C-alpha cells in the first residue's frame, strides 16, 4: 500500500532521537546489514529492523508503534555490532518500545505483546527487593498476562510445573530461591525508581 504522505508525522524521528538510546537513528543509510544478520529474521521472516528504522525516519508513527515485531527483538546486539553507521540498532528499537509503552499508558495504544507486562513485573521485584525474585515475578506477570489470577496460575503451572520440580530435585529451588533475597538498603534502589520511573 502506498504511503499516505499527509498522515506522516515529521516529528517522530526527533521523538525517537530525544529518547535515551535513540540518538543515532538518522545515521541509517538503509544497507540492511542489521536485518541480514538478525537471528530473529531467520525464524520470523517478516521481522525487519531496517524497515522499522526507515518507517520511523519517514514519520510513520502509528504503523511503527503498533508493529507487533517491536516486541520480538532479543536485544542480542548482533545488529548493533555489525551496523556500519553506528546506529546502535538494539538501543534505537528499545527507545521506540519505550515510546510505545508511554502511548499505552496514556490510553492511545494497545500493545498485544505481554513483554511490557513482563518487563514491568521484573522491575517491580527490583524496586521491592533490590534483586530479582523469580517467584514474585511469576506471580505478578502470569495473572496480568492471562487476565485473571486463576487463569494466570494455571498458565504458570503449565509452563513451570516440570521445570520447578526439576530445579527442586537438583537443589536449585531451595529455601534461598523460594524466599526473596532482599538487599539491606532497599531505600536507595527505591529512590532510583521514584526519580527515574521504569
Amino acid at each position, binding site marked *: 500500500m502506498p504511503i499516505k504522505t499527509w498522515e506522516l508525522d515529521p516529528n517522530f524521528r526527533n521523538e525517537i532521537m530525544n529518547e535515551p538510546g535513540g540518538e543515532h537513528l538518522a545515521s541509517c543509510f538503509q544497507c540492511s546489514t542489521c536485518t541480514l544478520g538478525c537471528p530473529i529474521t531467520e*525464524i520470523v521472516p517478516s521481522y525487519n529492523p531496517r524497515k522499522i528504522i526507515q518507517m520511523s525516519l519517514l514519520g510513520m508513527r502509528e504503523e511503527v508503534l503498533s508493529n507487533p515485531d517491536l516486541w520480538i527483538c532479543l*536485544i542480542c*546486539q*548482533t545488529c548493533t555490532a555489525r551496523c556500519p553507521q553506528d546506529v546502535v540498532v538494539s538501543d534505537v528499537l528499545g527507545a521506540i518500545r519505550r515510546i510505545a509503552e508511554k502511548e499505552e499508558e496514556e490510553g492511545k495504544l494497545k500493545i498485544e505483546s505481554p513483554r511490557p507486562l513482563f518487563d514491568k513485573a521484573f522491575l517491580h521485584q527490583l524496586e521491592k527487593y533490590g534483586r530479582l525474585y523469580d517467584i514474585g515475578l511469576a506471580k505478578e506477570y502470569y495473572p496480568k498476562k492471562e487476565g485473571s489470577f486463576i487463569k494466570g496460575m494455571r498458565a504458570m503451572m503449565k509452563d513451570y510445573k516440570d521445570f520447578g520440580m526439576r530445579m527442586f530435585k*537438583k*537443589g536449585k529451588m531451595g529455601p*534461598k530461591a523460594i524466599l526473596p533475597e532482599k538487599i539491606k*538498603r532497599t531505600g536507595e534502589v527505591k529512590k532510583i525508581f521514584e*526519580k527515574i520511573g521504569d
Partner: protein
Amino acid sequence: MNGRKLAYYPGCPSAGTAMDQDMSTRAVFEKLGIELAEVEDWNCCGAAEAENPILVYALNARTLAIAEKEGLDIVTPCSICYYNLERSNIALKEDEGLRAKMKEIDSSLDYRGGIKARHILDVFINEIGIDELKSKIVKKVNIKVAPYYGCYIGRPPTTAFDDPDDPILMDQLIELIGGECVDFSYMKTKCCGGPLMMTRADIAFEMAKKVLEAAKRAGADCIALACPLCGMMLDAKQPDIEKALNIEIGMPVIYITQLLGLALGIDSKKLGLDKAAVDTKEIVGKVV
C-alpha cells in the same frame, strides 16, 4: 587487578538457577589464590528488562560505587551483568553531567569512575594468564567441547572483550585443560533465545534448539558457556525444549568455570556438576 583481590558480583541467578555457576566461580578463584570479596549489598543490574539506559546507569552506579570504596575492580560470571556494569561504568566515566545527575538521585550513586567491571573469561585469560593457569592444572579434561559464547562477550563493541564473529578466549581455556573444540564457529555467538523465554517461548525454543542441535551435529560431548541465562535456556530448559519440539538432544551443558575447576582438581560436587538438568557424569568420568 589490585593485587590478588577482586570485588565479586554474583548476579541474581546465583541464588537459584545458576547456583552451580556461582559455586564453581568461587571454588576456581579460591584455588587460584585470588580473593573474591562479594560486593556488599549489591543490587540487580537491570538485566535485559530495564530498557531505559538512565535506569540501567543508576542501578549500576550504586553497585560500582560500593566496589569503588574498596578500591577493587568488579568481576562477574554473568555476561548480562557484565554488559550492564561496564556500559554504565563507561557512560559514567565519560560524562560528568551524568555523574552529577546520579548523585542528585541519591548519594549512594556517587560513583567517580575509579574502577572497571570485568567478565571472568577476560580475567582468566588477560589478567591471570595462560601461563599461570597452566602451572596450576593437575588433571586432563579429555572431552570434545562446543564453546558457546552467546551475546555479550564479543558485542556490542563498546564493552566487548573478544572477537564479535569468532571469539577465542573460551577455546583457549578448553585447549589448556586438554579438551578439544569442535567446529562450532558459526554458532558461537548466536543468541540462545533467553530474553524471549517468558513472552515468546516458541521463538526462544527454536533458537535454543539451533544451538543444541549444532553442538550435537558437531560431535560435542558437551557445550561450554559463561552466562546464566544461556545456562537456563540450554540446560535447565532442555527437557522442556525436547518435549515441546518433539526432539531428542541430551546434550550436557557446563559452565566454563566448572570445566576449569575439574582441571584444577576441584571435586565435581563442589563445582555443582550434580546440579545440571542434563546429566554430567559422563563428562566428569573423562577427567584423568
